[in-house]
């Protein structure tokens, strides 16, 4: 059997309260509670947990619009229907913005009353369902992250592994033309694996799941490691990486893996945006209580109007296609969002400056904790 519908009627006119109560007395599935003013109504709201609230707009005390707002704030569940005189239809409409879902003009017949209440009920049920869906969606989002990490990456890894096996000749001889095709497939799959990994990193960082406790991290060590891992890429693109490191080795508190990712992302970007024979300079300097890591390229720069958006998710320069020297443009545009997120989680900041045709510089500042001896 369906649950009873609970009604709360808030009206200062006894006649209206009585007639409404009377109208519903004959309907068995309704339970009716009455309140003579806004304060009493708000009190009853918590006790009764109504499904539908009927509110008179013109009452002494709290004004109708304000009352609707407070009712809504106290409980998002019930449908709120405003009872109004002909003259106050305009203010009834105003209450809709505060969360009322309909109004009923006085005088009204019992049938009009039933119809309004039924309609309100439908709406509140829809709202509840929407809220439940939203909660479900958040849960699904969490599960999706786990899903992606295993179910999506495993087959990608497998495809890549087969391509590698074929390319290595382990499955039999491969003709030159086929080899080229496998290489292209492999490069596409590799790009997709990278994208999934980046996306996972964003989710992980965003949900605050940085597991390792902070420990002193050598900034020069970070920079050297990032540069080392990217030298092959730089070499392939004819770009050189120059490091300018201080004599002492400043340390910052942090998660080494994450911080290395920051530097790697910036240097990787700088390489990809550099022209042939370009130079990527990475400079570390301790100043006062801060350590600054500067990554500067000699690329074509970021348009000024784009600068405020470079740390947004999925930002790219908007100029797709190949660089004029034939190098592919960097793709996904979440690398810088990750950089910012990680740096901020380390109580640091990141700035960008750029000049068209001259290059771009990213400067990270992190709190310093001393030097690693």
């Amino acid at each position, binding site marked *: 059997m369906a649950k009873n519908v609970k009604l709360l009627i808030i009206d200062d006119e006894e006649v209206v309260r009585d007639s409404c109560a009377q109208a519903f007395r004959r309907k068995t599935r309704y339970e009716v509670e009455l309140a003579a003013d806004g304060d009493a109504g708000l009190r009853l709201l918590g006790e009764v947990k109504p499904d539908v609230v009927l509110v008179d707009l013109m009452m002494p005390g709290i004004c109708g619009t304000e009352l609707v707002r407070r009712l809504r704030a106290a409980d998002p569940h019930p449908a709120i229907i405003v009872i109004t005189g002909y003259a106050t239809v305009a203010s009834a409409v105003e209450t809709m913005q505060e969360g009322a879902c309909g109004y009923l003009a006085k005088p009204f017949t019992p049938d009009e009353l039933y119809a309004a209440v039924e309609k309100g009920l439908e709406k509140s049920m829809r709202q509840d369902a929407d809220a439940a869906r939203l909660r479900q969606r958040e849960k699904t989002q969490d599960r999706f*992250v*786990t899903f992606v*990490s*295993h179910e999506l*990456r*495993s*087959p990608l*890894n*497998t495809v*890549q*592994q*087969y391509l*590698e*096996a074929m*390319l*290595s000749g*382990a*499955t039999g001889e491969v003709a030159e033309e086929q080899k080229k095709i496998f290489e292209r497939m492999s490069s596409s799959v590799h790009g997709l*694996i990278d994208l999934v*990994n980046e996306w*996972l*990193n964003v*989710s*992980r960082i965003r*949900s605050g*799941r940085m*597991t*390792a406790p902070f420990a002193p991290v050598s900034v020069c060590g970070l920079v050297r490691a990032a540069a080392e891992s990217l030298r092959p890429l730089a070499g392939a693109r004819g770009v050189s990486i120059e490091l300018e490191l201080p004599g002492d080795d400043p340390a910052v508190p942090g998660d*080494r*893996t994450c911080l290395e990712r920051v530097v790697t992302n910036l240097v990787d970007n700088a390489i990809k945006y550099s022209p042939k024979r370009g130079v990527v300079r990475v400079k570390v300097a301790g100043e006062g209580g801060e350590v600054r890591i500067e990554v500067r390229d000699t690329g074509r720069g970021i348009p000024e109007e784009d600068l405020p958006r470079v740390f947004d998710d999925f930002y790219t320069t908007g100029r797709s296609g190949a660089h004029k020297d034939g190098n592919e443009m960097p793709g996904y545009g979440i690398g810088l969002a990750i950089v910012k997120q990680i740096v901020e989680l380390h109580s640091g900041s990141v700035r960008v400056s750029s000049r068209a045709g001259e290059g771009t510089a990213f400067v990270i500042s992190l709190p310093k904790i001393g030097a690693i001896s």
Partner: protein
Amino acid sequence: MAKYKLLMVDDDKNYVEALLYVLNLNNYDVAVAYSKDEGLARLKETNPDLIILDVMMGKRADGMLFARKVRRSKEYAAYAGVPILVLTSIREQTGFFFPGEAKNPVFFPIDELLEKPVKPVQLLEKIAQLLERREAGAGPA
């Protein structure tokens, strides 16, 4: 020359097949197990020279439990010196970073870790290295 025996423990049959092409061609005799328990059973049956191990099997990090058992339990003491090479995509996995180094003697007692997908050349090199190290009599790292 006798073939080296490898034991591969990985729940992804398709992935295993892809690697078998490379391993078989390079004259390794490969036994396969698709779960931790099957892996432990095959370990005793085959007495391998090296173990290739996945971390996430099913929904759990069974690879870690496998490694700990092989390296620490009395039951498998005879195999504690068998080199373990981990192949995994775990390092990038959300919320699951190894504390510091991937090869943590307490947390995850293994010899080497490579990320999936792996270049055949790199894999073969690593396997050869580990086998050589074992021949030379060095214990597990």
